[in-house]
């Protein structure tokens, strides 16, 4: 079982100590979550997330041998429909909501470093 986190798990090369979350780890998670947070916010979140992790520790430590996970309340498998052409949303109406548009497409800043 890998159910006792804080076992030196590797997160971006950072090791989490038992019962807490490091500042570097908060920064790493903020990067994963695409949140540009200030240093003050990182420090506040370190305390808040550590407190919450302590609160949920009961779940982490639960003996769950032979208990299957439940990800969804309904026992649904694939829900299929006929492969029929149906009208979608109006393109112009959708694009009208976008912050920036060019030639009927969403416009974003460069993704791979310097623009050509």
């Amino acid at each position, binding site marked *: 079982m890998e159910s006792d986190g804080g076992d030196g*798990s590797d997160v971006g090369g950072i090791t989490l100590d038992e019962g807490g979350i490091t500042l570097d780890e908060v920064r790493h998670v903020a990067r994963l979550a695409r949140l*540009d947070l200030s240093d003050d916010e990182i420090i506040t979140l370190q305390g808040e997330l550590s407190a919450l992790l302590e609160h949920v520790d009961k779940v982490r430590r639960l003996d769950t041998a032979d208990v299957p*996970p*439940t990800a969804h309340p309904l026992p649904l498998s694939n*829900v299929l429909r006929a492969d029929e052409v149906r009208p979608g949303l*109006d393109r112009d109406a*959708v694009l009208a909501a976008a*912050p920036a548009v060019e030639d009927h497409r969403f416009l*974003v800043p460069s993704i791979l470093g310097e623009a050509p």
Partner: protein
Amino acid sequence: MSTSGASGGMHLLDRGVRAIAAAIRSGEASAISVIEEALRRIDEHEGRLHCFNLLTPDAAREAATNIDEAVARGVDPGPLAGVPVALKDNLCTKGVATTCSSKILAGWEPPYDATVVRRLREAGAIAVGKTNLDEFAMGSSTENSAFGATRNPWDVTRVPGGSSGGTSAAVAGGLVATGLGSDTGGSIRQPASLCGVVGIKPTYGLVSRYGLIAFASSLDQIGTFAVNVGDAAATLEVIAGHDPADSTSLDRPAPSLLRGLEDGVEGLRVGLIGDFLGDVASACAKAADDAGEALASAGAKVEQVSIPEMLLGLPAYYIIAPAEASSNLARYDGVRYGLRVEGPDAETMNARTRAAGFGPEVRRRIMIGTYALSAGYYDAYYGQALKARTLVIRAFEAAYERFDVLLSPTTPSAAFKLGSKTANPIEMYLSDLCTIPSNLSGHPAVSVPFALDPEGLPVGVQVLAPALGEALMLRVAATLEAVAPAAARGPVPLGDVNSQAGVS
């Protein structure tokens, strides 16, 4: 200013969903007169209560006129003809701003209607506006709104609960007859309890989530508010039922909920969940105890039951819900809609937009969810929480072998003061202690007003039922409603705000 609904003759608006629809359908009253009264009350009280993010009076008047014309022509105007409704502002309304009380969506106008919005309109109900919520439905007080807190009509220094606090306060204040909310961990039932109204969270899948802006998709469910059980059920009947646009909506006909509502509880087996009683205010525990006695007096077999797994609900939820939220809210990236804060490259633009657009609670939940799903911690947190969810479901299943319905407090306390829990997120999270297990299991639950606490604030009790047990659950709730003091439920006289409401 005169007060509305507080004294003098009772306006049709105060007689509830079914009475309003019946009067309008028969031509005894006009839809426009009811809508004008709702708009007049909103005009008078909205400044103090802040139930709404947006009002749509012109569209409401136009819809009312159309209903009155339909009645005059002999065309069926629908089962909820002319009933003023409030829509939580996380339900998409075509061409009408939908914000989730977040800066990241401010000004966005959805290109489509949520299925529930369409069904209400087709049934003749008239939306008067979009109600305030905790940002993206994350909270228990409606204080986490980017547009300011909603206040409890029983006492404007107190919260209405949340996250569906705007709808709950609007119904409790008599501004509308019914309304929609969404319930991911208690966001319908908890504000209903704090505002002295009925709030139903249906079985997961009974109501289409198409057009409900997602928070935690395996937990979210749309439900209804009204001042009495039958009216909340009448609205639910209209919005329930299969929708091909939501693949998780149950493929079965919508159940009849009003028939049998008054049939009583003779012989029903009721389990009073004992495990919460030590963790809630004495008034809330007493209300649940008294409700058990009331059901016993009405002929039910009531027994206290210990279900210790219920207490796993809260910690499991605070892993599962943020994990799902961190995934669902990844779509707010400044590309297709809403806010954008520019940056030199796409990732910087995404991160700046999200930091500027999301409030502190949403950021907190995204962070914890991202952490719980990240490499190295997925099994320890998210995986374990999903197994705890199984244990909660199994415990419910075992309990329902012995009992037809379960009973518990809805909330750990009555309405608390604005600002009293905002500094401590975990204390706020505890507000959903008793309501979360039903979201994990997908089972229905309802909060029904049952008592007043020593300060004169309303206290609800919760009736829980197995999947698709709504009809039985509502029958039990109606039985409790019949013996509860009338002063414990809305609409509260708004002329008396800040006084000890309900005390005559």
